[in-house]
Each structure stands twice: as C-alpha cells, then as structure tokens.
C-alpha cells in the first residue's frame, strides 16, 4: 500500500458551442441590460503608455471558410514587459492598460483589438522572449481552447533569439506566428488546419 496523493484532475474541457456569445459577449449577442458592457472590449485607459497598434486578422477553417462564430481572447504585457496581473511579481504594470482583450469574430471571421505593442518578457533559463501576444480561441467545433502566440514582423532580431519561436523553426512553421506590421496595423491570420496551419501550443 501507499498513501494516496489525493490530487484532483482538471475539469475536462467542453466546446464553447455555437452560443458562446451569450456567455462571453452578452451585449453583442443582443442580451442587453444585464451587464453594462461586454468584458475585454477595451484594453486601453487614458494616458496608456506605449505604441498604439491595431491587431487584426481572420480565423480560417480547414475548408477555407471564415470561423465567424468564434471568440478570440488575447493577453499580453504592457509596453515595459510587465503584466497587469496579481500573479506578476516583478513590479506594477501600467494601470491604464488591462493587457486582456476579448473579441467575437465578425461574418468574415475577423477579430480586431486596439492595444499597445508589448515589451519583451523574460523567458526560461535567462532568455528574453521577443514582444508577443498570447491568443486563445474558442468556438463550436473546438473541443478545447486553442492557444497560440503572435509575434511582430518588425522584430526580426528579437524573434531570432526567442526561445519559443525556436521550438517551431525545425518544423519550418515559425512564420505562421509572425504577424505582418504595416504602420500601426498588425495583421495576424490564424489557420486552424491545412497547408498554412498556425502553430498551436500545449502550454
């Protein structure tokens, strides 16, 4: 005999389903008057520090169709690389920046966030991770939320040294995580399947 560990198992994921908007963006779904505004719609407060950017793109399924019923969430550090989170122990983040956004895709499968460019964040073993934004995608037909990351095309040097991008390079898939920057607009399309399938992570 041996003592039992008595640990618990994580509750198994289930799909967010076709009516995910009721739960995550009730006002968008037409259920108004319950809460004043949908969470995560705005990430920026007055006087936010850093470079303002628009992050946008489309979610595409394996048949080339827009995933028009998904909800996308993003999470990122502030311009100094600090997270606005109780689990952040390195200092106080910019109070005018939430770091978290949530957006329902439109009929073309497009999402859009008004945010700021994050600073670099320390990675494992003394490395420095290139500026990046974490993505989480849920929808009908997605059994467990898909995790990925967006990097910036104007950060070639930092991207080359990034320890997570390095994991995807032997597979020749690192380019799927690098968003194209044109001025203040950063375009990051996400392909769930197929030739251009975006790298998804088990983090």
């Amino acid at each position, binding site marked *: 005999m041996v003592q039992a560990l008595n640990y618990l*198992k994580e509750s*198994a*994921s289930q799909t967010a389903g076709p009516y995910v*908007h009721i739960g995550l963006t009730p006002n968008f779904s037409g*259920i108004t008057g319950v809460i004043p505004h949908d969470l995560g719609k705005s990430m920026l407060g007055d006087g936010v520090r850093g470079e303002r950017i628009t992050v946008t793109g489309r979610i595409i399924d394996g*048949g080339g169709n827009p995933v028009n019923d998904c909800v996308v969430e993003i*999470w990122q550090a502030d311009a100094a690389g600090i*997270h606005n*989170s109780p689990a952040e122990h390195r200092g106080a983040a910019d109070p005018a920046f939430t770091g978290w956004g949530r957006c329902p895709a439109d009929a073309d499968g497009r999402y859009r966030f008004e945010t700021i460019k994050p600073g670099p964040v320390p990675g494992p073993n003394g490395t420095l991770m290139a500026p990046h934004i974490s993505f989480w995608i849920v929808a009908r037909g997605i059994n467990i939320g898909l995790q990925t990351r967006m990097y910036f095309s104007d950060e070639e040097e930092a991207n080359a040294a990034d320890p997570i991008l390095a*994991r995807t390079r032997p597979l020749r898939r690192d380019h799927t995580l690098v968003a194209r920057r044109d001025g203040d607009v950063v375009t990051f399309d996400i392909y769930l399947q197929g030739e251009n399938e975006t790298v998804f992570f088990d983090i």
Partner: protein
Amino acid sequence: MHDRLLNAAREAAGFVPRDRNWHPPALTPGYKSTFLRAPGQALIAFDSTLSERTGPAFGHNMIGALDNDLIHNYARQGESAIGQRLVVHGRVLDEMGRPVPNVLLEYWQANAGGRYRHKKEAYLAALDPNFGGFGRSITDENGYYWFRTVKPGAYPWPNGVNDWRPAHIHFSVFGTGFAQRLITQMYFEGDPMVDLCPIVNTIANKAAIGQLVAALDMAHTTPMDSLCYKFDIVLRGSRSTLFENRPEGN
C-alpha cells in the same frame, strides 16, 4: 546552497501539464463540427512562461446585484423566468485541492424549454421573455460561488439525424494564469441523455465525464423554493512547492 533554496523568491511557478488524454482531443468524429476546425498538426509543448503564468483579474465591485440571478436579471419588473428553480453552487479548486479565490466565472444556458436567446438558434421551443440565459460570479476567498437559475431544457441539434443535448450549463472560468483558461459544461445527475450526447462523448474517460455531472444537493436545497446542485470546477494546479519562499501565494 540550502539557504539559497529556502529563501529564493521567484515568480509564479509553472502549471502542471494538461492531461490531453483526460481532455477531449481536437478531432472527434462523433461531433462533426470538429472536422474542419481541429488542428491537424501536433501541438508544440513548452513549460508555461511569465506570459501564461500571469492572467487578468476582475474586481468584485464589477459584479452587479443580479449578475448571479438568471431568474431575475433579464426579467421584467416583478416577473421571473419560467422553469424549475435551481441554485447551482460549488468551489473552484486547483489540482492540489486548493481553493482558487477571486476568479471570474461566466455561465450561460438555454431556457427551461431548451431554447437559447441567440440569433443563430432555430429550435421551435418558445423563448421566455423573462429569461436571458447569462450570469457571472467572482469566487470568494474560499473559491466559492453560487447562482440562481432555472433548469435548462434538453434540445435537438443538427449533427446526427436525431442528436439531442442533455440539459447543461456552459461555464467559462479564469484562473490566476492565462494557461488555466477553461470552458466546460455542467450536466445534471440522473439524466439518461448524458451518455447519449456526442459532445459529452468527445471525452473518452468515464471518470472525466463524471466530474462534469453535478450532484443533486438536498442539504442545500431551499424548502418550498429551489432545488440545489453542487458543481466544483478544477483548474490546473501550479507546481510551486513548500521549498520555495514566495512573497505571495500562487
């Protein structure tokens, strides 16, 4: 060395890896919507970094008085939603059994007839003018939450020719880190339709399914008012140990 180990203040620890055999895989042929939406390549695994060990927090002051009352939060003044009155309550815990305080839960469901208030919903069951189907809570210092609702109805859906969803409530849960982000569904004890559901059966492990079935909780039922179901939710645990001295819990 020993002293340094005991006194080292480090950032939040990494999370216990997800058991991908416990969760449903991406592609589950019984649930046809997964065919075009399941990634075909292997997920690339790495230990969570600061970017995933941290996550957003929401203040208790954000929550309105009726946010956790689906019977009344969409109803006209003096009216209430139709259906079997329920209280759903439980705790958010991590895999080590520790309560997870101050985290946001959002929940949504069909009305008592099995109809969602959503533009894409085509089921012929009637809408209830007094039922929206959305609510939210933030766990207290013991990881506890509760809300009032009506029991959702079962409903048919286009998958197989005659597939029905058992009565269920959707839950979205935040943890302390973005890597803990979870969406799941709660089912009801004794419902024979749970075993028949293609979405339930995306989960291969019977014990994992059982963990999503809420028990009838007569001890907390309100006499002459509401039945009660208890539903605990478990988020990923962090690997922090007693040997690491941290300025704050994680």
